[in-house]
């Protein structure tokens, strides 16, 4: 039923255009019913986008190859899970998913804050409608998923590299992150348009921002896990432009999450926060542009398409509009509150912001420079890993140090003596850890050794914070140690959930340094019966085996693995040849040893006619901590976001006290 899908998209476009124009007029002229009507249009657009999504899903499941999109991205032999995932594996489907998530999240955010939107932030609905208009227009006019053709006997299938379980979760989570940033952006811009400089938009969108940031961060890690297992070069993050496209808004959103606390606590940085949220949202659009325009050559990107110019235009409108609004409202945004001391929590947040934004801009320049060079000078250049690695170390190490120092510094100001006393334990632990690691030979990578020393410092500071907090609560007398710990975290979820997120970043750092700085690699051509030694492992090539899977022919090199004379089993590394797609993928073999915290990673690069195989084998130490960091990150974020009944009561009291403003 492609006609129904097309019609649903046209209806969705009409509704979001109405939400933008009627909502804008209602907000400008102060018309209550018209604003309610525009709000209903936003809600209805979610339903219309939902109908379009159901039509596409139904066509995918039924293998309706009369739809070009279905024929172009699936085949009859594609397993059902990947058939469903092909909804977002192509340009048009992913745009539809974007519209669905945007209208869904936008509707939910407005519905949950309806009184606030009606009485304080009426511009929220037209801004959300305006953003949704762009995506609905693209789907109706430029890149419809409901284009039809004469149905072929079978479809072209899915890109083999996308046929990985992580690819079923990575893109939707990424979209939830990208699109979720629309919510704080829309509320912030609505606050500016309404000249509301109070913190109600921050309170209303706090969890939306945290959730989007968590989705984005977790999606980046899932993408890294996919790259590690599927792309098969042995690493986890390659500074690919599309990977960077997701990293940039995440870095800026991280800066925003920290600096917005300074606004809440000290009523400072209001202009800066507006700039940050506009920057994070613009970068999420830029990331989408990079992935979809075809301007960059990346394994993650979609093919060459005509939508790049549209995206670029939209990004320009968003960036220029936000900048104009912020400049227009500068007089009311500025506050007289000043930083009291350079040694204070708010100062630490400010330093953290400077490093995060500097890092994001550095990454942005690395992504943009090749495009600029090609456009201006006609010279194709690439910005490689050394550039990014240098700045990751230059900005990353101070950031890690600040993660340890920041929580130990008091708000407003702290005397150097008090700070020195607080830092004594973490610094002592860090020095001992650094000394032990240097003695164990970690000095072969000086940056890695410094990183590990800083990581020990941060972990010690986090443990100290939990210990001191628990002791202080226990000293009040009425609670057991376990009760004191639970109530400490329960009563200060943002603070202690944040510390757990910091611990996750430390785990990520330890893993990244491990695989990047202390790994071992060996490449060799081996004949059946020959062995290869890598680190403490010995791999003996036993021969090849082939088998037919549902939609591919699989070839594998069988390798017997031993360590110190102990047989560890057999590993199978090889390639898949996909029938419908006429493409070959690398299928690496990974043996994870959680006790030793290392992976044995085998790539069978080339199968020769004489029976030999060209192997690349890596020992990746501590890489599993990177994946563990993802789980700890989600745990910390959940604690931070978990509803706090005391906080809700406090806010309800305040909003009730606001009296006339809370009517309607």
């Amino acid at each position: 039923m492609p006609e129904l899908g097309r019609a649903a998209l046209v209806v969705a476009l009409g509704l979001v255009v109405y939400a933008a124009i009627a909502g804008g007029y209602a907000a400008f002229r102060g018309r209550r019913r018209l604003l309610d009507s525009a709000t209903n249009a936003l809600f209805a657009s979610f339903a219309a986008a939902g109908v379009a999504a159901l039509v596409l899903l139904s066509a995918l499941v039924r293998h309706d190859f009369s739809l070009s999109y279905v024929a172009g991205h699936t085949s009859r032999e594609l397993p059902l899970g990947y058939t469903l995932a092909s909804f977002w594996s192509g340009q048009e489907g992913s745009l539809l998913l974007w519209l669905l998530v945007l209208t869904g999240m936008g509707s939910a955010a407005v519905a949950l804050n309806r009184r606030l939107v009606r009485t304080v932030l009426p511009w929220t609905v037209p801004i959300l409608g305006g953003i949704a208009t762009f995506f609905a227009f693209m789907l109706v006019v430029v890149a419809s998923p409901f284009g039809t053709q004469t149905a072929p006997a079978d479809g072209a299938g899915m890109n083999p590299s996308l046929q990985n379980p992580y690819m079923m979760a990575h893109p939707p989570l990424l979209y939830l992150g990208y699109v979720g940033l629309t919510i704080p952006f829309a509320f912030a811009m609505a606050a500016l348009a309404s000249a509301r400089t109070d913190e109600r938009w921050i309170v209303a969108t706090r969890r939306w921002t945290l959730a989007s940031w968590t989705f984005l961060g977790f999606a980046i890690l899932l993408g890294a896990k996919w790259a590690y297992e599927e792309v098969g070069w042995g690493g986890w993050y390659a500074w690919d432009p599309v990977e960077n496209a997701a990293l940039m808004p995440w870095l800026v959103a991280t800066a925003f999450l920290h600096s917005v606390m300074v606004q809440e606590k000290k009523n400072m940085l209001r202009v800066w926060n507006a700039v940050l949220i506009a920057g994070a949202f613009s970068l999420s659009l830029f990331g989408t542009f990079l992935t979809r325009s075809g301007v960059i050559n990346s394994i993650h990107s979609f093919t060459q398409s005509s939508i790049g110019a549209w995206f670029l235009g939209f990004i320009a409108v968003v960036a220029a509009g936000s900048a104009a609004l912020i400049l227009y409202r500068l007089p009311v945004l500025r506050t007289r509150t000043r930083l009291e001391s350079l040694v204070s929590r708010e100062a630490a947040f400010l330093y953290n912001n400077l490093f995060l934004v500097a890092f994001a801009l550095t990454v942005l320049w690395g992504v943009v420079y090749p495009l600029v060079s090609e456009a201006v000078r006609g010279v194709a250049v690439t910005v490689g890993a050394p550039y990014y690695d240098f700045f990751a170390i230059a900005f990353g190490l101070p950031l890690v140090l600040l993660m340890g120092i920041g929580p130990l510094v008091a708000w407003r100001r702290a005397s150097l003596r008090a700070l020195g006393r607080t830092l004594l334990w973490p610094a002592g632990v860090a020095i001992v850890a650094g000394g032990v690691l240097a003695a164990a030979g970690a000095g072969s990578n000086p940056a890695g050794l410094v990183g590990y020393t800083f990581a020990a410092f941060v972990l010690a500071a986090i443990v100290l914070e939990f210990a001191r907090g628990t002791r202080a609560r226990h000293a009040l007398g009425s609670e057991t140690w376990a009760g004191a710990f639970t109530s400490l975290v329960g009563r200060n979820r943002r603070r202690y959930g944040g510390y757990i997120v910091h611990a996750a970043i430390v785990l990520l750092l330890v893993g990244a340094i491990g695989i990047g700085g202390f790994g071992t690699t060996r490449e060799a051509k081996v004949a059946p019966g020959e062995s290869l030694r890598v680190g403490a492992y010995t791999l003996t090539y036993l021969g090849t085996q082939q088998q037919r899977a549902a939609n591919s022919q699989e070839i594998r090199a069988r390798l017997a693995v031993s360590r110190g004379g102990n047989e560890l089993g057999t590993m199978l590394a090889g390639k898949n040849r996909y029938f419908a797609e006429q493409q070959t993928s690398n299928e690496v073999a990974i043996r994870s040893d959680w006790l030793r915290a290392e992976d044995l990673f085998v790539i069978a690069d080339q199968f020769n006619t004489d029976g030999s195989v060209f192997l690349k084998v890596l020992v990746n130490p501590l890489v599993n901590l990177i994946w563990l960091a993802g789980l700890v990150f989600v745990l910390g974020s959940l604690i931070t976001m978990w509803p706090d009944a005391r906080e809700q009561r406090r806010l309800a009291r305040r909003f009730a006290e606001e009296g006339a403003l809370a009517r309607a």
Partner: protein
Amino acid sequence: MEIAAVLLAAVLAVACVAFVARPFLTEPEPVDDRLAEATPAERERVRLLEERDRALAALKELEFDHRTGKVADADYEELVGSLRRDAAAALEALDPGRSTKPETAAKVDARA
């Protein structure tokens, strides 16, 4: 199939239009169709309420940081006075002329 699709599309469009028009259909002649707009006095009240909550939260945080040893006694003594004054000033501004200074100080302590 095509007719069913067209019919379903028409149902969707009509349902959406009806839903969008609902505020006008349920309230054809409203007594007041204006959006509530905050007066300068109301905005000032919001500002003061935020100021009060910020000052009280800062006091609470300072107390906790002092108890955990993050803030030294001398720093605490220096900071607590000015934070109490900020909180008291915000409470006074919200409730002018109603409370005498000792009562306000008691309120600050009770809330913090």
